[in-house]
């Protein structure tokens, strides 16, 4: 690139001023730019070898604050000349002690019984140090060197060093100025476009490798975006999305799923029940059919053989499993047969909260409703899920236990780094679930996937809390 085109506007202002070597304050005054801008321009120009700088160091002495009080020996002598003074009184004067020493050396005073008296010479005393002090600031001459050292020792004068930076233009710089740098344009303006004055202009070249200020643009939350992609995958597979409430009745959360009311997972302390909740509104027909299935079974089976409590079923709690959405769908008169459904739902776990357990969690679950579905179809679907969501063909299915499916299956997938991980559970819905809810002769496959864990794998997140990150800096940097 042409050097002239790359010059910054500041550089272009400073360079022509350097006909002679100049200091920063001089250049600042002349260009009317602040000194910082001059310094920056000089740094850039120096990097481009258009300008060189020379630093001169000036050493000299100057009077210190103490020195400004005058010579202590002169003050001391003046006092002593009036009348003899006690040493301890004179010592009160700053530098007094040293002054007595100096005066004694020059035979101007004598010390007797703790008292200082003037000698005969005293009245004729001269102080060459005083004239040196008056010359300050200066670099003392050879003759004054001894005096200066003594004054410096006594803290009356001090050495100071002043650096002066002078910039001068190099031959390359001169060449450039001669060729002309003024025609380089910084900003393309609407006027230039309107009047065509941009033509023939050179635009200043930028250093685009330099660091730009950070922009914090808007974007989707990474885990929510992952859930969006899960939704798209299910839609692509022909699944229709279901919905259900966060505050759910025991009925849809558990009873409709054939979990007996005495089941240990149904203890009051196993769920977040809502305080002072009114009994849930559940359609009587389906309640009756579920009650009968629990008490007496269906298709000649034995059922759970206990007294089903309708009031118990109407208690309201935070949904413990997304399968509640499937239960509602199965009982919905608009259920499509054949049909495939899924839900992405917020569920709640009554558990201690720590780095691996959150009270909120997300579940993806769903159903396939059709005639002639078998466990082997369920296994087929699970393998498809493993391929899509865990990117693996290596899966293992083993018998599982869920109250609402029989046979039940658990799916493990082999993660390239983490080994076998549990992906989810599934099964063929029990007649005790299907008959009271659907009231038709169909087969229902049900499945659920622990999507939070899947999200962690896919997003490379180790701490589950980062799925719901409260750290804005993290979210701003997070990949989507």
């Amino acid at each position, binding site marked *: 690139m042409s050097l002239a085109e790359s010059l910054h506007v500041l550089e272009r202002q400073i360079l022509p001023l350097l006909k002679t070597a100049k200091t920063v304050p001089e250049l600042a005054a002349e260009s009317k730019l602040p000194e910082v801008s001059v310094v920056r321009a000089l740094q850039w120009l120096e990097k481009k070898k258009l300008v060189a700088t020379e630093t001169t160091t000036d050493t000299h002495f100057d009077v210190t604050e103490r020195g400004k009080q005058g010579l202590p020996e002169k003050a001391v002598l003046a006092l002593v000349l009036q009348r003899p003074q006690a040493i301890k009184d004179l010592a009160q004067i700053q530098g007094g002690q040293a002054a007595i020493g100096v005066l004694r050396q020059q035979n101007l005073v004598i010390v007797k019984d703790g008292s200082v008296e003037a000698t005969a010479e005293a009245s004729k005393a001269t102080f060459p140090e005083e004239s040196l002090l008056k010359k300050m600031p200066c670099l003392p001459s050879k003759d004054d060197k001894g005096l200066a050292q003594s004054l410096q020792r006594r803290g009356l004068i001090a050495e100071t060093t002043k650096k002066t930076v002078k910039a001068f233009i190099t031959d390359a710089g001169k060449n450039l100025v001669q060729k002309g740098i003024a025609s380089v344009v910084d900003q393309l303006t609407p006027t230039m476009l309107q009047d065509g004055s941009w033509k023939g202009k050179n635009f200043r070249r930028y250093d685009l490798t330099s660091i730009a200020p950070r922009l*914090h*643009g*808007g*974007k989707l939350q990474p*885990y929510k975006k992952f859930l969006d992609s899960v*939704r798209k995958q*299910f*839609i692509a597979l*022909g699944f*229709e*999305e279901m919905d259900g409430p*966060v*505050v759910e009745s025991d009925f849809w959360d558990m009873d409709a799923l054939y979990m007996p009311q*005495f089941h*240990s997972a149904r203890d*009051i*302390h196993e769920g*977040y*029940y*809502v*305080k002072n909740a009114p009994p849930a509104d559940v359609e009587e027909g389906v309640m009756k059919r579920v009650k009968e299935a629990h008490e007496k079974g269906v*298709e000649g*089976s*034995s059922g*759970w053989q206990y007294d089903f409590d309708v009031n118990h079923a109407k208690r309201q709690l*935070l949904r413990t499993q997304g399968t509640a959405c499937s239960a509602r769908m199965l009982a919905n008169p608009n259920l499509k047969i054949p*049909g*495939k459904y899924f839900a992405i739902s*917020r569920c709640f776990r*009554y*558990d201690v*909260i720590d780095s691996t357990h*959150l*009270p909120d969690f997300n579940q993806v679950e769903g159903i*396939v409703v*059709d005639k*002639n*579905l*078998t466990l*082997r*179809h369920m296994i*087929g679907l699970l393998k*498809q899920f493993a391929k899509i969501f865990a990117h693996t063909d290596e899966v293992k*299915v*083993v*018998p*599982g*236990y869920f109250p609402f499916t029989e*046979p*039940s299956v658990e799916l493990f997938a082999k993660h390239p780094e983490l080994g076998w991980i549990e992906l989810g559970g599934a099964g*063929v819905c*029990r*007649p005790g679930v299907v008959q009271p809810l659907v009231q038709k002769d169909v*087969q229902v496959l049900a499945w659920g996937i622990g999507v939070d864990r899947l999200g962690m794998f896919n997003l490379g997140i180790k701490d589950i809390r980062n799925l*719901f*990150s*409260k750290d*804005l*800096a993290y*979210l701003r940097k997070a990949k989507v």
Partner: protein
Amino acid sequence: MPTLTYDKKDFFALLGKLVSEEELVEALSCLKAELAEFGENISVEFNDTNLPWIWSVEGLTAMLRGLLGVEKGLATVDVKKPERQTIVDKVPGRQHVATFVAKGKMSESLLENLIQLQEKFCESYGKKRQKVSVGLYPAKNIAFPVHYTAIEGTMAFTPLDGEHMSITDILEKHPKGKEYGHLIASMKKFPVFMDANNHILSLPPIINSEEMGKVDADTKELFFDATGTDERIVKLTAAIFAFALSKRGFAIESMNVSYPKHNVVMPDFTPQEMKLDMAQVDALLALDISEPTAKGLLEKMRYGTKGNIQVPAMRNDVMHNVDLVEDVAAAYGYSNMEAIPITTHSVGGTTPLQNFADDMRALVVGCGYQEIFSAMLTNPKSMTKDMRVKGKLAELDSYYSSSYSALRSWLTPVLLQFLAQNKHVDYPQNIFEEGPATSGTLQDERKLAFASAHSEVSATEMKEVLDFVFDAIGATYEVKEKDCEWCIPGRSAEILVNKHRVGWFGELHPEVLANVKLEVPVAGAELDLGRLFDHLTAS
């Protein structure tokens, strides 16, 4: 899900076959169990809470012997005819009883085993002794018949690890009384086992008597009881314990349990008879196997197959033919089943509201806002008091932490909490969240809230975003000035669509900001997406 630990040597002695860890894992998976430890001891985690028979090492190895080909067919116990009797009086609240006697050789390790089983069984399956509890006694001191009866709380005996005291005192003072007393505390009279000489054996489900109910390694004859509130579970419990003892060489002598109006013999190993519906085996598994093959597989799962199917008395989880189908599948091996692709055709899709919410999210992102995703559980203070408002919330009956004791009823407080946690991060901070919120009505409402925090923020910025978003969805809204409690007076307004309120926007009140310890001004807005969508589609 219970995890039990067994002595490895004892486990393999009972199993009667040496198998590798891999083989054991595979066989356990057929029983829905996982090997948690395979060292000096063997630990197994059971996922199926309805099959407690296999929690006992004797039951577990009996099932594994079937799967590993050591033994097959109906698992059962030959019991001696009853000679002794338990007479049951009316015991309201804990009416069901099973008792038997077992003769054999006790040992320290066996006793330890039995106690582990008793504890896990009564805690987990027995719902902390409420459904069922179990007692063991040396039989030699007992004068039969034994009575199960209800007595006054003033009656006294010496409980294990305690002084001679009244039943009422046991419930109040004895450690076991404190732990389990609530199960019977409300009864007028209390259940006890008492022998023919009126010696109290125990106070079920709390504690045995020190004199009559202390089993040790020298005990040669055991008296067993199970009491509870569910007849089937009590019966099942007796069968499971009798099965375990019989595998340890004990001879099981059944007993007559005489209720006021009927008589039963316990333990009862009469198997439940079921008919295997082969049509359903085919329909559910599509394995193309014959009936003899299916029956052979069930024999491996320890069913009897003489004529129909006999279910071991130690199981009560086999209710329906589908349960048999699953056991056929388990014995066949899930890994041996080939997957069939699903061909059920259906058109995929999501809800119109979901599509709308996604569009809205994209538009707010377009205004430079970062999306956040927060927990729905929060606390009442953040939702109301901190925001200078009152309101009915969906609060929880019980919770682990008061920070998570209610559902969020709106999203703005959630955004403020987020901003308060990020005071060290570069400003301006523009954030938003979309998702459900649930108020005291317990109905979900889909909401979208956004907020901007920086030193020169104003309500106008919110209006800019709203204008952009509403233009993009082709809708108009009306601004109705309204002082929202959480905003600076004169700097907030309601958003109306078709004259209906669908949200608000404004500058947050300094007191609200101080409540959440924010030191930078914030402007915010919140839309009720569901309501907005309804009004848009209606017009």
